[in-house]
């Protein structure tokens, strides 16, 4: 399992982006990431839940228990103001970074 620093940071960024749109429980977040990446990225549970709790610890998301559409009790995650700020700066940095990596890889090798 390639849980590099890089991946951890990216996962958190994606989670933040997911809950930016509204409260979501952990299962839905995993689904959402898989769907948006066209099935390429599958957030593993083993990484997702610890990431959620870490984010909550850092005050970037907060949680509350609520009821799902199917009537189940689930823990919903909401983005905080700090989380939104963090998401904005970090996703900008990520885009810059990935564009740079792409540019490097696109250039002809010597």
């Amino acid at each position: 399992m390639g849980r590099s620093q890089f991946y951890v940071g990216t996962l958190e960024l994606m989670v933040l982006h997911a809950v930016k749109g509204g409260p979501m429980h952990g299962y839905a977040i995993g689904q959402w990431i898989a769907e948006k990446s066209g099935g390429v990225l599958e957030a593993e549970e083993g990484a997702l839940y610890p990431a959620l709790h870490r984010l909550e610890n850092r005050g970037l998301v907060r949680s509350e228990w609520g009821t799902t559409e199917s009537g189940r009790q689930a823990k919903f995650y909401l983005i905080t103001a700090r989380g939104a700020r963090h998401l904005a700066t970090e996703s900008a940095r990520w885009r810059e970074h990935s564009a740079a990596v792409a540019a490097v890889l696109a250039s002809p090798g010597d």
Partner: protein
Amino acid sequence: MTRRPLFRRSFRVTDFQPDPDRDVEEEIAFHIAQKKEELVARGLDPEEAERRAREQFGDAGRIGRECYDASRTRARRRVRTLYLQDFRDDLRFGLRTVFRRPLVTLVAVTTIAVGIGITGVMFSIINGTMFQTLPFPESDRLLDVEFAVPEGGTEPRVLQLGDYCWLQERQSVFEDLEAFDWASWAVSGDGGNAAVYQGAIVSTGAFAALRVTPARGRLFTPEDSLPETPPVMLISDRFWHTRYEGDPAIVGRTVRLDGTARTIVGVMPPDFVFPVNQDLWLPLTPRDPALLPGQGGTVESFGRLKEGTTFEAARAEFDGLVERMAREYPQRHADTRALIRPYEREYVGEEVRTVLIAMLIATLAVLLVACVNVANLQLAAALGRVREISIRTALGAGRGRIMRQFLVESFLLTAPGAALGLLIAQVGMYGFNLAMPTEETPFWFHFGVDMRVTAYIAFLALFTALLSGILPAIRAAGLDSRDTLREESRSTTTFRSGRTTGRLVSVEVALSFALLVVAGLCGYSMLYLFSHDWGFEPRKMLAADIDLDGPAYDDPTGRYRIWEEILAGVAALPGAEEVGLTSSLPFDDEWEDLPYLLEGEDPAEVRNRRPVMTTVITPGTLTTFSRAILQGRDFSDTDGFQDPPVAIVTQNFARRNFGDASVLDRRIGLLDVHGVWRWYTIVGVVPELGVPRKDPVLSENVLLPLSQNRYRGLTIAVRVSGDPLALTPGVRSVVAAIDPDLPVFNVRTVRDQLEETLSVFTLLSTLFTLFGITALLLAMVGLYGVVAFSVGRRRQEIGIRMALGAARLDLVRLVSRPVAVQVGVGLLAGAVLALLFSRVITAILIIGRDYALPVSLATFGLLLLSVLLAVVLPLRRVLQIDPAVSLRTN
């Protein structure tokens, strides 16, 4: 987050606390359930779906643990935040409470401020004297060398030059044994006015031992102490600036000191005024081979410990050395023991230390009274809050929470009190510095509010808050909410604070009684000294110091003629009534202590006897001070150098040593500085010269005629009909006519001298009186509060009793009886305390404990009067209670 209304926040039951572990478990369970549902929807059978879901989730235990950790941290943080939030609420609620009762708050804050302020002042004084160290590198390695307090004496003995030389040759623990002697010189021959400056004669290595380097020029070298080397001197930076305006060409300049030309070889750095407040230094010439232990003038001795040597080693070596010296020179040193102390210790005598610490305890006692008052105030106030507390308890606030609320309020009262107290201490120290005579204050003493004092005050503030808050807090937390809420009308009696406040009153009365007795003793002796009938009017007497120093005055006979010339000249001045010379004024502390011997006594047998205080006078000095000759005669011109030595003794000396027998023509021996007994024939008896002392030995004196004794520096005392200071130019011109280089200095009235001699004592007395009065005022306020509180509490009961026909006087008795018991207990305990305190304080009082009883009785009267006042005022309200009204109010 929206702020809930203050009331809700303060009275909050417990907040919902999520369980961090269950939280995680449920979350994982939900995930698996959701997954399973999805798989079932895709067509898997439920059992298979469940298995797949779990498998896919992975190691639930590990993931769970990772989540638990994060979740628990969060939960802990949350508890902490809640606690702090509660604390903030307590603070806000407390502030409201405090501001809702402005008068109570004002009294409490002022009380604490006064209590903390005066103990802050006292601690600053102790800090300034006892906790300061010499401003030299590794000053803790500088040790003072003396002889231990002799039996029956009060102060340690300093070394004589012979002792110093003997010890210096044999010691090995110090880099070298150093010595210095106090001195003063008339400075002239440099273009400035002839003036006298304080200085010291120091061993040539002394400054190197202190590790000071000169700002200009050089220190002394061993050669400087040799008689054949041209005379040199060192000067202080202060002297350099005031007398020579910082002249850069100062080193090498020649100045006359007591008529001897000396070259300035160096200027010491700024603020260096060793040993205490001196400006000039000359090298000490110790090597007189003829000097043996027990001989020579006195010197102060100290040394710097060698590298690797300890204090204990130094002490052991000097114990041994001095023991040996005592064996080899038993005549003077039979019972001599060494005394090695940290250098600074010598400058704060044991008596002064005891008194300072006693005073600190006294101020802490005042602070204790203040705490008691504040505790009482809070107890009384808590009474009015019984319902509030009950409601909070009923709503789920724990005892801890209620206690915390009370402690927080107590802190809220203490914090501004302490800040104000700090201010009081600062103002107090400003006043203290103004009143403190600076000339005799060692230069490293520093009286001010520094970090140490601030820390002390902060600590006391904490202590005060706890002490004054804990009791009300415990009481409040102990309330039973069900009782108070159900039986509203009895709510006030539920709060059983009566017994507690009663005990506090006893403590208060006891402390202020003790302090007042001490203050009374101080005040009384101060009053006594200033109103004492000296037999002369101190305001009408001029005193001035004249030193006949220098080679021109080396011949004693010639010197005596000059003294006679000065006396005759001053006596002839218009306004001068009587004139005399003396080596020390009646009440100053500069009398010379000499061991004495009666005829037929063996010196070895009386070596433990207290020495006698002696002074030198001229014919006419006694008349000047209005002292009649009781028996025999005054000194006269016929008592010359060649004639048999004569002496006059005081009545007390005669009585102690000769009983009722006639003392005229009896002989007494006095030990001179060379260790030789010199015999004197008693020719007269006079009454006491100075203040009647608590120590009778101090008024047993021997007076010697100047005509037979070699004195260079004397004080001239002139009884004047008009303004004494107006005579100053006349006295100066008489002396200048003899030699313009002779300085006339320290010109003052005898009253000034008296005030100066007593200044430190006056200061201490004033402080103590202040403490005592403060304690009394605080106790009165406290007592008033307690009685008013108790009357208020029993208002209803009194109303019922009145309605049932009780006599008003009986009601007064009913309310006042417990107070009377409490005050009585307090007075009793106070009397015991006062006895202990006065034992300590009489150590510095000049008048004796004979006055302790009348002073105690007077204090007792004053206290009783104040207590009555504080009790009667609120008691009057009992008589004003209208039964109809008091019954209706509930």
